[in-house]
């Protein structure tokens, strides 16, 4: 399979709403996606992720900017002339064709010999684990099976890039997790470039080599799942991915890649290579599962709420002027504090991220 990179250059899409106002659905974004990479476009609804995907597929015409697939500019090609294949949110299986004809559709359009089509279809059915289903019609399949047929139909085209438009959103939670790993396995097996649109962060985390966080038409951050989670560049990213405590602090002094900050009268040394200067205010981002709670600790506080959540105990602790959320994992083997109790909390410097 000849997987290709995708290069998006200063891409903009402007819509005009019925009142005549211009709406920038996608606002001057540039991304470079390498061949074989699994990249997720992640963001809240209306952030421009689907529009971007549809521009790559050719269903929407960019207002300005360029899209390259491999080294070929594809802006002016209609969808049927682009080397892309898409898996749709609604699967978009052809209801009047059976499984075989659905999967073979693109190859028939290409006028491949019938024998070759048969071989390819049976091979791909094996890959997705649906051998023997050729004669079934889409409405005789479960949601997960339809999903796999949709994937096979796109995959069989051996496209330069595979596009996914929230493909798992119609499945129930368990199946979603299973299909997620199936998609990842098949993508790796084929070594195909994939661009995946979702608003589900756990999907993005578990699937991607690279996550692109979008908000209101712009890219907030591009990074690996690890970078996105632990080193969010903006408050939006920190807030959108997982749960985060935002604590106000002040930078006291700065060395090359470290800074000393003042938080509630205590000085802490934290890794930092941003451009804030000593004396400036900053925000600390701290994930709730990284905060330790005990009888004694760095900072004194009072438990405002304490809720058993299964795998962890969730606390809200009032700590001076701050309210801190804490997830204490595996509460069964730990002391559980209840509302109104005095506690101490401890922050590990390596779990503090400054923005």
């Amino acid at each position: 399979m000849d997987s290709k990179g995708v290069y998006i250059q200063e891409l903009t899409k402007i819509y005009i709403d019925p009142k005549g106002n211009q709406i920038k659905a996608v606002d001057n974004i540039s991304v470079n996606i390498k061949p074989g990479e699994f990249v997720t476009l992640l963001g809240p609804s209306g952030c421009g992720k689907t529009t971007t995907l549809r521009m790559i597929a050719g269903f929407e015409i960019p207002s300005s900017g360029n899209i390259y697939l491999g080294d070929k500019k594809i802006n002016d090609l209609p969808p049927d002339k682009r080397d892309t294949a898409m898996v749709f949110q609604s699967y978009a299986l052809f209801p009047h064709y059976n499984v075989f004809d659905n999967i073979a559709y693109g190859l028939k359009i290409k006028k491949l010999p019938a024998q070759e089509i048969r071989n390819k279809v049976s091979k791909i059915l094996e890959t997705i684990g649906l051998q023997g289903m050729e004669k079934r019609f889409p409405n005789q399949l479960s949601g997960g099976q339809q999903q796999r047929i949709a994937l096979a139909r796109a995959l069989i085209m051996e496209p330069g890039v595979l596009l996914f438009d929230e493909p798992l959103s119609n499945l129930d939670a368990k199946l979603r997790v299973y299909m997620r790993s199936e998609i990842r396995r098949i993508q790796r097996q084929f070594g195909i470039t994939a661009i995946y649109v979702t608003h589900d962060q756990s999907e993005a985390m578990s699937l991607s080599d690279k996550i692109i966080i979008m908000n209101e038409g712009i890219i907030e951050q591009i990074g690996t799942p690890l970078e996105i989670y632990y080193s969010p560049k903006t408050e939006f990213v920190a807030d959108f991915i997982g749960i985060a405590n935002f604590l106000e602090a002040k930078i006291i002094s700065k060395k090359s890649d470290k800074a000393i900050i003042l938080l509630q009268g205590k000085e802490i040394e934290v890794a930092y290579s941003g451009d804030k200067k000593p004396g400036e205010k900053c925000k600390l981002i701290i994930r709730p599962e990284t905060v330790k709670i005990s009888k004694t600790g760095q900072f004194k506080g009072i438990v405002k709420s304490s809720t058993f959540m299964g795998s962890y105990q969730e606390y809200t602790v009032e700590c001076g002027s701050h309210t801190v959320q804490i997830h204490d994992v595996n509460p069964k083997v730990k002391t559980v504090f209840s509302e109104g109790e005095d506690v101490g909390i401890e922050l590990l410097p390596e779990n503090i991220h400054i923005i």
Partner: protein
Amino acid sequence: MHFLKRQKGCKSMVVRTKLLSDFKDMKKILRDPILLTTIIFVIIILLTFIIYPLYSVLNESFVENGRFTTSSYIRIFSNRDFQNTLKNTLILGVVVGVLSTAIGFIFAYANVYLDTGLAKLFDIVSILPIVSPPFVLGLSAILLFGQQGIITKRLLGIQNANIYGFKGLVMVQVMTFFPVAYLVLKGLLLNMDPALEEASRNMGASTSKTFLKVTLPLMTPGIANAFLLVFIEAVADFANPMLIGGNYSTLATQIYLQAIGNYDMQGGSTIAVILLSLSILLFVVEKYLVEKRSYITVTGKSSRKRELITDHRIVLPIKFICLGVTIFVISFYILVPIGGLFKTWGVNFSLTLNHFKYVFNIGLKPFTDTIFLSAVATPITGILSMIIAFLIQRKKFIGRSFVEFASLLAMAVPGTVLGIGYILAYNTKPLLLTGTAAIIIIAFIMRSLPVGVRSGVAALAQIDPSIEEAAQDLGANTFQVFTSITLPLIRPAFFSGLVYSFVRSMTAVSAVIFLISARHNLLTTQIMAQADAGRFGVACAYSTILIFIVYAAVYIMNFALTKMQVGQQEII
């Protein structure tokens, strides 16, 4: 467009950005030569066969010796006869509209709300007039209530009873058009959420109070809508006033009588413009004011089945009315084949096959012509209407609103107006079509097109556009997407469009009456000519055969459909 008014300041900007976005979307069209060709083709068809004939009528009515003049309008409006005709038309529209809507409502209510046990029968009876040839009810009315009518003369002993005129016309038109109201109102009642009425009962209102305070107010826009639709049809109707109207002239018949009877094309055109304005006005009111105000969303089925009313005090009277109308309608239909079997209706009731012999002695030409022309028009209408529906529903392009407007306009245009437009537009080169089979076929197509387009659009709206996008994404061009995905998916709408188009063409009168020539003879015009000459037996014989052909065709097409849809249940 009303948002333009609110933002006068930036109006030009709005228009410019709107155009700009149209151009951006045009880029998508321009890189697709098949689509572009299709769009241009459709626009040319609509311009040539809908807009241009209407323009010709307008032109004929306003231009004399190359100069603009309103003299024709002054002449027409100051004419006593015309003033009467206008008044007649409006009165007829209102009376028929009110009566048809009332009967349609009773039938719809009986079918949706009541446990009458006869829902199926009422359904058939109220749809029968829609697929029947136009002269059937009129002929029966004459046989029942005319000078020699079995009810008027035999039963009641009235000499010289006169069915011709206002009363006869109202009777026949109500029977013809109450199904229109019935279908609209039934659709709305079916979509009414039973929970609304249950809520009313739950809060202490009686059945009748619930009906008056909840059901009826919710239906008001629907009732207004049904009324207007019937009004439009009654005013545009040609066949019934022609057959049974007598001295009660209407605008639709006057156009024909002026243009063909008096050779006064300008006069005919002027009346045509007036009728067209009336129809379009009503159509716009219906489409943009009344339809929009509907409280009931027509999409989606009601969540639960309604508990049918079984209370005898309510069911019995309504059932009685519906049964009465049903018997009336059925007897009208039975009468036509019977009427063809008697020697001279009302005078000599001896059985004979002479009328049928006479029909076949004249020759089979009217049959072969009608069937041939309809059979040619039917597939073209089917394909063209699905293509237009596809363009309107799925594509964005400059001229899309024109395509939508033109195909809607064709629905509002009365047949006689289109007919006079066609003779005016196509009697000179380069489009010298008068007297050809082509012009009749085109008239058939344009008359059935709007309904086909509408059902195509409705069918497409139910289908997820990403199915077609998926096909395109897999390498299919627009033509391949349309033939392999779109058309198969809207197959039911396509085939019912074919049936409708065939029936409509076989029974067409109003537009084609202007276009027939010695070379082509149609069954409907034969019926009219025979009835005009007082040969009711022959007219009945023709009608019987026409009904037989139409039903046979519908039956065959339905049979073919079910054959082809074997396994269909597995698919959708």
